[in-house]
């Protein structure tokens, strides 16, 4: 009746129980507060069922902040474990729990922090920048958001019921096969990503069509703001990369549920095929995240340098070059798997080639700043932080693109430091910059500048402390995901732990900044154009007019898809059928109503 689900799924070890109870506690507090302030109706009408892209954007960003807190707690647990694990002290986490923590950290940060943060900013700004009232398919937009929420809910649910994958963030087989991961952890992983992935794909199509067909009449392609261009590029990548993820995870789940042999160790399965396929999606995914961040900086740098962007055409060409090249570099994630020199050399060279358009962008920003009257407001500070860390990450990336060097550094902390350079220093700093930059437009009041500056300095200092030691440790030979560490690595791990604490302080300042700014919102009105931006979004009021259009169907689809996902994880087949048929029924019923929006 309930598949694999029974009471034992709720019983965990002591540390896991703390996590379990904090999730339950968090939900109870939120529900309690909403009920106490009688805010349910308001929330339902104004946000949850809204079809307005800006409202959906705000919800995306709220989701990503919640998940950022969760992912950061995972990071702090890992840093603490490695910092205190010395001599007789084996740390505070069990090995299996530690493996779940680093898996959850990676999955959450990529799929449920970076992706929703990106889609949040896109929803907020792209329609405004191209002068469109909304996106091409407002209902699908709402549905995409709710499917993303379902993924995030499933991941957090794994803390309460059952467990999460202990396989690393890409769940390589054969470890992720049923034989070696018999629990439901990998199934949580698969279905959270599958459901959120469908939402992402639909969003990708939605924004591609929006940008292609809904621009103001006189905004030709070469008059689009660079942010719109980079989003356009990222959406192309979403559309053509995410089906590969869906397919690959589908094959893995067939292996696990139905005893197929795609990636198993026996009967002809090939685990290497999984690695190949998942990175054919995985590399474009990296550029899906970074391209919009490039676009954000291309908005911020001219505004705060008080000049026009240098080299608009080259920015566009570079963006499109990245879109093409990002599909032909994926082997650099597995040089060590043993392909011949020709394959490795080709993909190594392509990887180095992709640094060229990226370099073009960096130089364009620098030339934009050159002889500008630069205002060092928080968005610009984030850009300066990005520039330094991202160029360092890019340089180490080109280093890793050399197969010979990669053989030495593969799976070491050097790699971990490299991609955190790209994803924190590149993606996250970019999105923070965009958040600070566009916040006044969406909410109509300014964010507290002083606290923003504090937050920035904590982040950048913490980042250097936390990740530069990892480069050194990697070169010393320390591999990633280690539970027990040899003593000579210990001092630098303590430094990295301190760095994590400084980042935590930065996050505290960000929360404080939000609270204080909301508190003092009357004193700090934004006006329509607080930064003297030149693009269309600054021509409208702050906050811009919201569209009252709403629909309950998005939430309905989300709930039913969530039931379906949960049922698939626990193999409760009747519930899975109900969920799937329910989703279909909602969509079919919708087609019979008269709509202005599809």
């Amino acid at each position, binding site marked *: 009746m309930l598949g694999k689900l029974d009471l034992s799924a709720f019983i965990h070890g002591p540390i896991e129980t703390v996590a379990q109870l904090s999730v339950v506690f968090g939900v109870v507090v939120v529900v309690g507060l909403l009920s106490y302030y009688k805010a349910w109706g308001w929330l339902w009408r104004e946000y949850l069922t809204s079809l307005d892209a800006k409202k959906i954007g705000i919800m995306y960003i709220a989701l990503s902040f919640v998940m950022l807190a969760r992912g950061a707690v995972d990071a702090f647990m890992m840093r603490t474990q490695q910092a205190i694990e010395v001599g007789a002290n084996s740390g505070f986490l069990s090995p299996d729990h530690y493996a779940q923590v680093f898996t959850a950290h990676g999955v959450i940060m990529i799929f449920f922090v970076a992706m929703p943060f990106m889609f949040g900013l896109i929803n907020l700004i792209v329609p405004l920048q191209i002068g469109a009232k909304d996106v*091409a*398919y407002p209902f699908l937009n709402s549905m995409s958001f709710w499917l993303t929420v379902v993924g995030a809910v499933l991941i957090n649910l794994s803390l309460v019921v059952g467990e999460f994958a202990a396989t690393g963030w890409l769940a390589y087989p054969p470890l992720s096969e049923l034989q070696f991961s018999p629990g439901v952890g990998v199934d949580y992983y698969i279905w959270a990503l599958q459901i959120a992935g469908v939402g992402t*794909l639909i969003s*990708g*199509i*939605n924004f*591609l*069509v929006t940008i*292609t*067909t*809904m621009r103001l009449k006189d905004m030709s392609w070469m008059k689009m703001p660079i942010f719109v261009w980079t989003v356009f590029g990222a959406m192309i990548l979403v*559309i*053509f*990369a*995410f*089906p*590969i993820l*869906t*397919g*690959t995870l*589908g*094959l893995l789940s*067939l*292996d696990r549920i*139905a*005893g*197929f*042999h*795609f990636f*198993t160790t026996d*009967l*002809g*399965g*090939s685990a290497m*095929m999984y690695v190949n*396929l998942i990175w*054919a999606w995985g590399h474009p995914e990296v550029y899906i995240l970074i391209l919009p961040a490039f676009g954000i900086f291309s908005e911020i740098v001219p505004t705060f340098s008080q000049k026009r962007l240098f080299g608009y055409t080259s920015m566009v060409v570079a963006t499109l070059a990245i879109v093409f090249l990002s599909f032909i570099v994926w082997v650099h994630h597995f040089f060590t798997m043993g392909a011949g020199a020709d394959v490795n050399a080709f993909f190594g060279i392509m990887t180095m080639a992709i640094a060229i358009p990226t370099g073009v962008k960096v130089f364009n920003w620098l030339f934009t700043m050159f002889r500008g009257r630069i205002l060092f407001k928080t968005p610009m500070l984030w850009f300066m932080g990005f520039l330094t860390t991202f160029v360092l990450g890019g340089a180490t990336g080109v280093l890793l693109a050399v197969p010979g060097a990669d053989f030495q550094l593969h799976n070491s902390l050097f790699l971990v430091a490299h991609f955190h350079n790209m994803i924190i220093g590149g993606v996250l700093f970019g999105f923070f910059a965009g958040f600070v930059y566009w916040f006044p437009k969406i909410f109509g009041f300014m964010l507290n500048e002083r606290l923003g500056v504090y937050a920035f300095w904590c982040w950048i200092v913490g980042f250097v402390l936390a990740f530069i030691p990892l480069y050194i440790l990697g070169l010393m030979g320390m591999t990633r995901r280690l539970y027990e560490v040899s003593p000579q690595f210990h001092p630098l791990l303590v430094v990295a732990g301190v760095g994590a604490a400084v980042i935590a302080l930065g996050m505290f300042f960000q929360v404080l900044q939000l609270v204080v700014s909301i508190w003092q919102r009357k004193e700090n009105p934004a006006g329509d154009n607080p930064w003297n931006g030149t693009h269309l979004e600054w021509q409208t009021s702050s906050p811009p007019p919201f569209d009252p259009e709403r629909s309950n169907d998005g939430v309905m689809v989300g709930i039913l898809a969530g039931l379906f996902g949960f049922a698939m994880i626990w193999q409760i087949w009747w519930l899975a059928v109900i969920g799937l048929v329910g989703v*279909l029924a909602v969509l*079919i019923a919708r*087609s*019979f109503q008269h709509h202005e929006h*599809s």
Partner: protein
Amino acid sequence: MNTHNNNTTFGFWVYLMSDCVLFAALFATYAVLQTQTFGGPGASELFDLNFVLTETLILLTSSFTVGLATIFSLEHKKRATLVALATTFILGLSFVGMEVFEFTHLIAEGSGPSANAFLSSFFVLVGTHGAHVTAGLIWMFVVMLHVMRGSVGNKLYTLSLFWHFLDIVWIFIFTFVYLFGALAL
């Protein structure tokens, strides 16, 4: 067609192109794993070309009839549209039925999807196509209701795009899976 309809068609076209990549991943998987029979029978021993030819002709004809349906619908011939759609539906259903028959037959012979990697990849590639056809049938049923109510809009046109697309995918399945399989490559 107004702009809104054009948007829908373009968005659907983009979805189809994205679906191409899903099939590309499955074709690639099949291509890599097709030799991994692990001692079991290979494609040349398992598949019956006459059967596949029949399936192909059925699907091809259905692609033609769905095209007729869109034309009749543009000419506002409600009855003819419904007849063409019903024909398409029956053809599609027969195709799925044949595929189910083939699958159950293979499983009964002990050549089910969990027998080896070759069969896993065969079942998933062909089965994914079959699942798309099945989804298309459900959708076709809904579109027929819309035709009866006179609220079809461009729903029939997007459905026909989907159906033609599935026919094109099938060209590559019968070529690379069945015909190449019979060549015993």
